[in-house]
């Protein structure tokens, strides 16, 4: 029964991945992507791959969500100012 952690981590990754795709709002999606990164790091740890887990932890939970959030901010700011002009 020593594979229970692996199975649980796999199911967690599958759920987090599905949730990340199903979340249509990019801001919420970036948070779910962070959770997916965390779940993947957990999976890699129980699969005895500490090197990969370390890099996934840094990239998946910090770098990717941050870049998505910054892109959303840029795109939204632009859309907002265009809407404002429409109302003028």
């Amino acid at each position, binding site marked *: 029964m020593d*594979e229970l952690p692996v199975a649980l981590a796999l199911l967690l990754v599958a759920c987090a991945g599905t949730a990340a795709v199903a979340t249509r709002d990019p801001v919420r999606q970036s948070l779910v992507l962070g959770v997916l990164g965390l779940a993947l790091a957990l999976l890699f740890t129980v699969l005895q791959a*500490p*090197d990969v*887990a*370390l*890099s996934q932890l*840094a*990239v998946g939970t*910090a*770098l990717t969500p*941050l*870049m998505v959030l*910054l*892109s959303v*901010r*840029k795109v939204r*700011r*632009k*859309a907002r*100012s*265009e*809407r*404002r*002009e*429409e109302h*003028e």
Partner: protein
Amino acid sequence: MSPRTRLWVLACGVAGVAALLAVTVWRLPPFGGARHPYGERAVEAALASRVANAVASVNFDQRAFDTLGEQAILFGSVLGTVVVLRQTRDERRVEPEPAGVAGPVRRYALIALPVVLLTGVYVVAHGQLSPGGGFQGGVVAATGLHLLYVAVDYRALKRVRSVHLFTLADAAGEAGYLLLGTGGLLAGTAYLTDVLPLGTFGTLASGGTVPLLNAAIGVEVAAAVVVLLARFLDQAIEIVTSGEEGDRAPGTDGAPGTGGARPAGGTGRADGADGPHRTGRGGAG
């Protein structure tokens, strides 16, 4: 193609791939099996070159040329991002306003900052001994630097982080990897061969070129991440497109009639419109 047809095409493709995968997984080597011929040989080769972390040995010794290709992709995408997100002629910079940060956040982030930077360097330096290496440590150190943004504000981060220097460091890391590879040529063997003395197993100086290549990758990855985030932060916080101030017709009705061909500042309203970002803008690009 109408959205409905597109969904049908997608459904067919997904069903086909799913069916093929379902057939294939039963013929793959079973999960957790004991037969790993490549893995066993890679571990033997790692021990022969006195590298304790077999993953580092695979990356920077046995498959060093492959890693050269990987980091060329990294370098290329960073270069592409820098070019795509540059400040164009119709864009201006606005100075971000200083923002207040809650006391505890500031304190803990400032305490964590040196710890995280040191951890990053440690992870790079011990790449051939323990889990870690240039790729991981570089990302850790680079994201750690951005604690400064959390702790103080964007201007503090900008003062510390000269994008120009980090761009040079990125190129230096790439060049360092390339030049270290020529050591093999000078010694009369193949490119990227480990020709340095191998040292004692389990010490910092073991593994010949592995720690050096690790350091080169560490510099490159750290600089790459800093430059990438700098470009995105610039776009999100500082750079203002003329369209952002609303000097052109909105293209939200599905009839895209505005766009790239339009001359910069077309209707001349860019300098008269209202908006919170107007005050104290920096030099125009």
